C-alpha cells in the first residue's frame, strides 16, 4: 500500500467519480424536475461513445468526433423525448421503468447491429497523449488529468447555471413543485425538454470522454447506469450538489475498495480467504454504502423535494 499506488488509485477514483457525475447530473435533473425515472440514460452514455467512434471515422480527429457525438447524442435524446418519454411523464414509475427498459433493449441491440459486438476504441487526441510526472516516480496520463479537469469545469458550469441563471432557477423551482411553476405561467413542457436534452448531452459527453480510456462495447452503459442511480439516490434526487458529492464518494469508494479491499481483508483473515472475500466486498461496498445511507436518511444526503 505505497503512497504512489494510493495516489494513482485516488486519481482513478476521482476520474470514475467525474464520469459518474456527468451521467448522474442529467439523471438527477430529469428525475427531480419531471419525476421521470429514465433507465435509458445509460444507453445515452454508450451512444455518445459509439457516435464519437463514428465521428472519428468521418473527421479523423478527436475534436471532430467530439462535436459530431455531442450533436448526435442531443438529437437522439430529443427524438426519444418527443417520441416516447413525453408520453410517460404522467404515468407511474412502473410504466416508466418498463418503457425505458424496452428502449435499453432496443438500443443495445441496435448498436450491435450497426457496429458489431466486438469492442471498439477511440484514439486519444494528440494534444493530450503522453504522461506527466506528478510526484516522484509517478507518471500519470495527461488525458486522464484532462478528463478530471474537464469534469470539474462542467460541475462548476452546472453549478453556476443552476444556481445563478433564470433557467436554473426555473429548474430548481420545477424540482421543488412542478405544478406550481406551471401555474405561474412557465411552459413546463419546454423546460422539461430543455433539461432532458441537456441531461442526455451530458451523458453522451461522459461516453465520449470515456471512449479513449475504456473499451466501447454494447451494454457499456448498463453498469454505469446502475452506479449513477446509486449516486443520485445517495445524493438525494434532484440535487446537483448531492450528485456531485455522491459521485466523488462512490467513485473513490469503489476504486479504492477494489484496490485495497484484499489487502485490508488480509489483515483480518487468512490470505486465501482474503483473496475470496476481498473482491466480493469491494464490488459490494457502494451498495452497502447506499443501503446504509438510505437506512438513516431515506431520501438521501441532500433531499430536494419536501415531504
Amino acid at each position, binding site marked *: 500500500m505505497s503512497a504512489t499506488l494510493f495516489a494513482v488509485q485516488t486519481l482513478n477514483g476521482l476520474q470514475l467519480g467525474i464520469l459518474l457525475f456527468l451521467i448522474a447530473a442529467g439523471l438527477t435533473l430529469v428525475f427531480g424536475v419531471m419525476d421521470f425515472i429514465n433507465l435509458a440514460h445509460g444507453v445515452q452514455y454508450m451512444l455518445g461513445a459509439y457516435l464519437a467512434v463514428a465521428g472519428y471515422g468521418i473527421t479523423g480527429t478527436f475534436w471532430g468526433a467530439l462535436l459530431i457525438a455531442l450533436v448526435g447524442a442531443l438529437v437522439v435524446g430529443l427524438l426519444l423525448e418527443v417520441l416516447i418519454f413525453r408520453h410517460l411523464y404522467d*404515468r407511474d414509475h*412502473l410504466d416508466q421503468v418498463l418503457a425505458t427498459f424496452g428502449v435499453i*433493449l432496443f438500443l443495445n441491440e441496435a448498436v450491435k447491429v450497426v457496429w458489431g459486438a466486438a469492442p471498439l476504441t477511440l484514439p486519444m487526441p494528440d494534444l493530450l497523449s503522453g504522461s506527466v510526472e506528478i510526484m516522484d516516480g509517478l507518471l500519470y496520463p495527461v488525458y486522464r488529468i484532462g478528463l478530471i479537469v474537464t469534469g470539474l469545469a462542467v460541475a462548476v458550469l452546472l453549478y453556476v447555471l443552476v444556481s445563478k441563471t433564470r433557467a436554473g432557477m426555473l429548474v430548481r423551482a420545477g424540482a421543488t413543485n412542478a405544478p406550481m411553476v406551471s401555474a405561474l405561467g412557465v411552459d413546463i413542457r419546454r423546460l422539461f425538454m430543455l433539461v432532458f436534452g441537456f441531461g442526455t448531452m451530458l451523458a453522451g459527453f461522459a461516453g465520449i470522454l470515456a471512449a479513449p480510456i475504456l473499451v466501447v462495447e454494447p451494454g457499456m452503459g448498463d453498469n454505469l447506469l446502475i452506479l449513477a442511480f446509486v449516486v443520485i439516490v445517495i445524493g438525494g434526487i434532484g440535487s446537483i450538489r448531492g450528485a456531485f458529492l455522491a459521485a466523488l464518494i462512490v467513485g473513490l469508494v469503489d476504486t479504492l475498495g477494489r484496490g485495497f479491499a484484499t489487502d485490508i481483508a488480509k489483515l483480518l483473515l487468512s490470505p486465501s480467504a482474503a483473496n*475470496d472475500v476481498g473482491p466480493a466486498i469491494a464490488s459490494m461496498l457502494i451498495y452497502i454504502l447506499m443501503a446504509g445511507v*438510505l*437506512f438513516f436518511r*431515506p431520501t438521501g444526503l441532500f433531499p430536494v423535494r419536501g415531504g
Partner: protein
Amino acid sequence: MHFTPARLSRELLGALVVFTLFAGLPVLADLMGDTFIVFFTIRVMVFAIAAVSLSLILGYGAMVSFGHAAYLGVGAYSVAILAEHGIWDVTVSLPVTLAVCGLFALVTGAISLKTRGVYFIMITLAFGQMAYYTATSLSAYGGDDGLTMWGRTEILGSTALGDRTVFYYVVLGCLLACYLIARMVVASRFGRVLQGAKQSEMRLRAIGIDPYAYRLVAYVIAGMMAGLAGALLANAAEFVSPAYMSWHRSGELIVMVVLGGLGSLLGAIVGAASFLVLEEVLSHFTQHWRLIFGPFLVLVVLFGRGGLISLLPGGRKND
C-alpha cells in the same frame, strides 16, 4: 371490488383453462414426439412461479422490487451448494432453501420498506446487485462461471425427479400450490390490508393499522416463493450461475407481471408464458430479437394498459 362473483368465476375459469393446458401438455408432446416443448414449458412454469410471487407484492402491494431475481438466484444457489456438499434430499434442501430466502427477504425487506417510491426501487436493486456480486465471488462454487449440479434433488433417496415427466408434474404442482397460496393471501384480511395500503396508506393508518409489518410479511412470502422457483430452476437446468440474479433478469420479471396484467395472479402466469414464448419465437427469426422486443415493450406500456389478461374475452377493464 376485487371479489365480485363475476370476476371470481372468470378468474376461476381462466385458471382452470391455464392449468388444464399445462397438465395436458406432456401428453400432447408425447403424441407429437416433441421433447423440446416439455423442457420449454418447465422453464415457463418456473418463471411463472417467480412472476406470481412478484405479482403478489407488485400488483397487490405496489412494491416495485427491482431485485426480485436475487431470490431466484439465492434459491438456486442454496440447492446447488447443498448438492455440492453431497446433500441432495428434498427434506433438507427445501427447508434450507426456503429458510435462506425467507431470511434474506426479512433482512433486506426490513431495510427496504423504510423507503418509498423510487428509493424502494433503487434499494431493492442495490440488494439484488449485492447478491449478484456475492455469487460471482464464490470461487469455491464456480464464481463467474456458475456451478454445475450433477443430478437433481432426491425425494427420500429416490431419484424420481430425473424423469422428465415426473419433474414436469412436480413443477406444475409447485406452480399450482403457489398460485393457490397467493390467491388465499390476496383474499384474506391480510391481503385486503395490503391492497388498502396500496390505495391509501394514510386512511389505513387512520383506522389504526400500520402497514409496515403487513408489507414485510408479504415481501418475505414473495421472497420464499421466488426462492422455490430458483430451486426448481437449478434442478431444471442442473446448473446455476450468477446470471440468474442480474438486474436484467429482475427487469424481465417485472415485464412478465406487467405484460400479463397488474393485479391479477393469473395474469402473471400468462405474462411469464407470453414473455418466454415471444422470446423463443422472435429469437428463432433473428438473433437480434431484442430489436423487435424492445419497441414492443414500449408499445405495450404506451397503449396496452391493463395487460394481456384484459384482452381476454370478458376481461376486466383497467380501473
